[in-house]
């Protein structure tokens, strides 16, 4: 039975009640308790730093050469908090409600309300650490809008919000390293969870420079290892992002929840060819000012600047007048796909739409001219002034676009297309962020908890930091209070020996295939299957085909993979092979989950279930649950359902019209 451990009582009191009644560990005992944190993104770095500050003995791991390089660094647009600094009607309740609705009523009320409650503390904490958020002339913090909301609650640092937040958390982490409370292991990859008497008691890691396996003990293990979007090969994630840590836990019995909830982001730079190694996001914040359109006429080959206003279709503004260009991501992505599938796409591949800043440049230019007291400013002056404003807001994104495409987005509209971006699914966790394995926790994008079937923009950074700074420091005590009598278990315990042997055997098996095809080529093929059959639109037949194709590909992988180099050496091909092998297994579960969920919700769009206008059609009577999958053997999973109850935010058909 899945017990989500949501505290009793009214929604707005749950977290407060929990905090005032959970068990505590006294400071002297904290020093004896060891905690492993896998990952140094926003979730991992904030957790490791905060737990170190509390006095626990922390060991922290990342596969990059420095904790500061975790994928969170790449987040662009911003972080939400219900501060209501703009006096535009925001509140904890509204942030809670927007998140539940944005997630298409597939997340837990208790978790989401807690997230909204601590959102303000996150901003305060970051400011105190020296995160240089954007400010207004009066010196106060500035906000902008993101999709799926009608208020301005997003805090940002140009287009580098993730970088600045992560540097804040990284510095806090390094401070704890200097104080001796945290020991950091860079270029180490966690390859298994060690279980003793039914509890997580440690991990097996591989030193990526020497190739040596190591055993590490702890009283509790936190996985903060990020999302699995790279199962699609092409995504906006960093090249190294992978599912391995979570997948190893799954293989040891942790349930994997809602794997089919993947987010396709509407505004990314389109694919240019087969050489493509990753896709680049153009932040959602651009939809504050950019207008999305395609030509009214099919196959219109004129340059965008030559197509007059009345021959353009601003299709989001047309279909969703209330939210316009700021509809949630799933809605915006499907609308772009619909236009391109109908033949209105632009660019040489016709798989792109325009994101146009001309209107914004003009509007800002007029405002600036007014501010600077320039009377009857001519068109050139207005454009010049307007471009300066746009540059200040989005300069780094515009530069990035130009470097990649060679086109100047100040002069011509950007071409964009949806791409895989984020995964709402992940390890199942309860209210305390513990998986169904005692002592094994999961934080950040790696867990499934707060975003339902679709995450709103600027909410992942909020969740990662909420989990690490403000949730786990309380909830872990509730478990560790019962562990103060557990002595450190020596790592020659049979469970460690066995786990290390299994890891070592698997690595040898991979190296000994000695076939003909590279890891990269297999990963690309897996990605194509997933994108074509389990991407923006899915149907039962396609998913069944995909499952068959994935199995065949996996069999071929284990028969014909070629890994050069040695085991006991720095060997990036071997690292990648292990990760792709795990993606091959996860891919099947994603498709099984997508096939099982006979409804459309958020990022999961089943073509069989749509309204006459082509919107996602939920089936609350049958699918209002979290799908938590338990691995039962090769290719065999059992479904456990956690029914979702909505006491406050009553489910309705989402409308952004």
């Amino acid at each position: 039975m899945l017990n989500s451990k949501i505290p009793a009582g009214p929604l707005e009191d749950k977290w407060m009640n929990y905090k005032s009644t959970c068990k505590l560990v006294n400071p002297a005992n904290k020093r004896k308790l060891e905690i492993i944190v896998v990952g140094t993104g926003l979730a991992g770095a904030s957790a490791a730093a905060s737990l170190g500050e509390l006095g626990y003995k922390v060991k922290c791991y990342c596969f990059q050469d420095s904790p500061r390089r975790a994928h969170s660094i790449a987040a662009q647009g911003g972080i939400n908090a219900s501060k209501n600094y703009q006096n535009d009607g925001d509140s904890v309740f509204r942030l809670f409600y927007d998140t539940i609705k944005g997630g298409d009523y597939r997340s837990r009320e208790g978790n989401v309300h807690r997230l909204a409650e601590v959102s303000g503390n996150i901003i305060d904490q970051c400011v105190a650490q020296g995160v240089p958020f954007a400010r207004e002339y009066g010196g106060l913090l500035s906000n902008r809008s993101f999709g799926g909301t009608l208020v301005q609650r997003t805090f940002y640092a140009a287009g580098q919000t993730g970088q600045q937040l992560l540097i804040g958390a990284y510095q806090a982490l390094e401070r704890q390293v200097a104080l001796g409370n945290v020991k950091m292991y860079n270029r180490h990859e966690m390859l298994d969870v060690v279980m003793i008497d039914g509890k997580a008691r440690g991990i097996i890691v591989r030193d990526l420079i020497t190739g040596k396996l190591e055993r590490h003990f702890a009283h509790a293990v936190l996985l903060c290892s990020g999302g699995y979007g790279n199962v699609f090969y092409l995504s906006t994630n960093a090249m190294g992002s992978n599912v391995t840590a979570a997948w190893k836990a799954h293989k040891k019995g942790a349930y994997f929840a809602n794997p089919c909830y993947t987010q396709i982001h509407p505004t990314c730079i389109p694919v240019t060819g087969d050489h493509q190694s990753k896709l680049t996001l153009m932040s959602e914040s651009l939809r504050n000012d950019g207008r999305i359109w395609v030509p009214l006429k099919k196959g219109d080959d004129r340059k965008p600047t030559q197509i007059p206003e009345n021959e353009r279709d601003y299709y989001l503004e047309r279909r969703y007048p209330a939210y316009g260009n700021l509809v949630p991501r799933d809605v915006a992505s499907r609308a772009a796909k619909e236009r391109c599938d109908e033949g209105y796409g632009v660019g040489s591949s016709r798989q792109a739409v325009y994101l146009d800043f001309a209107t914004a440049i003009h509007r800002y230019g007029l405002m600036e001219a007014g501010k600077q007291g320039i009377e009857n400013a001519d068109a050139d002056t207005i454009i010049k002034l307007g471009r300066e404003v746009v540059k200040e807001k989005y300069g780094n994104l515009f530069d990035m676009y130009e470097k990649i495409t060679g086109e100047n987005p100040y002069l011509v509209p950007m071409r964009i297309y949806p791409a895989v971006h984020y995964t709402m699914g992940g390890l199942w966790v309860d209210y305390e962020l513990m998986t169904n394995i005692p002592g094994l926790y999961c934080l950040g994008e790696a867990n499934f908890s707060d975003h339902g079937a679709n995450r709103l923009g600027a909410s992942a950074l909020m969740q990662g930091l909420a989990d690490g700074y403000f949730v786990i420091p309380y909830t872990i005590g509730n478990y560790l209070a019962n562990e103060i009598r557990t002595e450190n278990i020596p790592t020659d315990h049979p469970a460690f020996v066995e786990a290390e042997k299994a890891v070592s055997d698997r690595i040898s098996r991979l190296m000994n295939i000695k076939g003909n095809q590279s890891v990269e080529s297999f990963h690309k093929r897996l990605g194509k299957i997933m994108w074509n059959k389990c991407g923006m639109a899915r149907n039962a037949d396609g998913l069944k085909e995909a499952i068959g194709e994935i199995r065949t590909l996996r069999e071929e992988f284990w028969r014909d993979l070629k890994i050069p180099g040695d085991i006991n050496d720095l060997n990036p091909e071997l690292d990648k092979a292990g990760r792709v092998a795990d993606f091959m297994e996860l891919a099947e579960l994603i498709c099984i989950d997508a096939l099982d969920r006979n409804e459309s919700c958020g990022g999961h769009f089943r073509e069989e279930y749509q309204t006459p206008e082509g919107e996602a059609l939920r089936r609350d009577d049958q699918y209002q649950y979290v799908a938590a999958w338990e691995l039962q053997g090769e290719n065999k999973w059992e479904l456990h359902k956690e029914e979702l109850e909505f006491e406050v935010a009553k489910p309705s058909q989402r409308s952004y019209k």
Partner: protein
Amino acid sequence: MEHYKMNLTLKVWRQKNHQDKGQFVTYQVAGISSEMSFLEMFDVLNENLIEEGKEPIAFDHDCREGICGTCSMYINGRPHGPWQGTTTCQLHMRAFKDGDTIVVEPWRANAFPVVKDLIVDRSAFDRIIQAGGFISVNTGNAVDGNTLPIEKSRADESFAAAACIGCGACVAACKNSSAMLFVSAKVSHLALLPQGEPEKHSRVLNMITHMDKEGFGACSNTGACEAVCPKEISLDNIARLNMEYLGSSLTMDK
């Protein structure tokens, strides 16, 4: 934008490990599209090597968006290659033409030992941060974010310094292998904010002391670092650091 294909000669530094002496090895790659990124060109080369049964070239990379600071190639005598304000991963092949020869080496500095091929060990940067590159505030101690207004221009300046990605190109470009631009960016980021004020003296002294300890050289103000910095971190930060350092040495009781 006109796209084209090119054939290239690559001279790449190969070094098995830190003990190995290392050497240049020449490779040919054909049919490279001008739309590829520099690292995608390396992907093509590595796939070729794997096919030929050779070991691919080890290089560091992750985000491929110019923000994580992992990529680090010294291309034709310049860290991160020919484009101004651009990381290796954001450099695109339209910077080159058919028939070009491109020489690729790792960062070279005593404090950044080569690990393998183009990969170096930059953990010295983490240790410099450990020496003082933070504000000492525990989680939960913060006051409301708007309690303390910060002049916009100051906040913007702090942000510009905080944009450093810790890539180490500044060190690689410097004939003394000084880490001054990196350290000054961190010192400025924090010293410009009121929250960073209380520790500003100890911070600069500790970070500089540690920088010396790690074996980075002294700064002789040639400005090579600023010229190659992918985030265009300004030399003004070094001037600010020097002021802070001087002030701190005078005021701190050591």
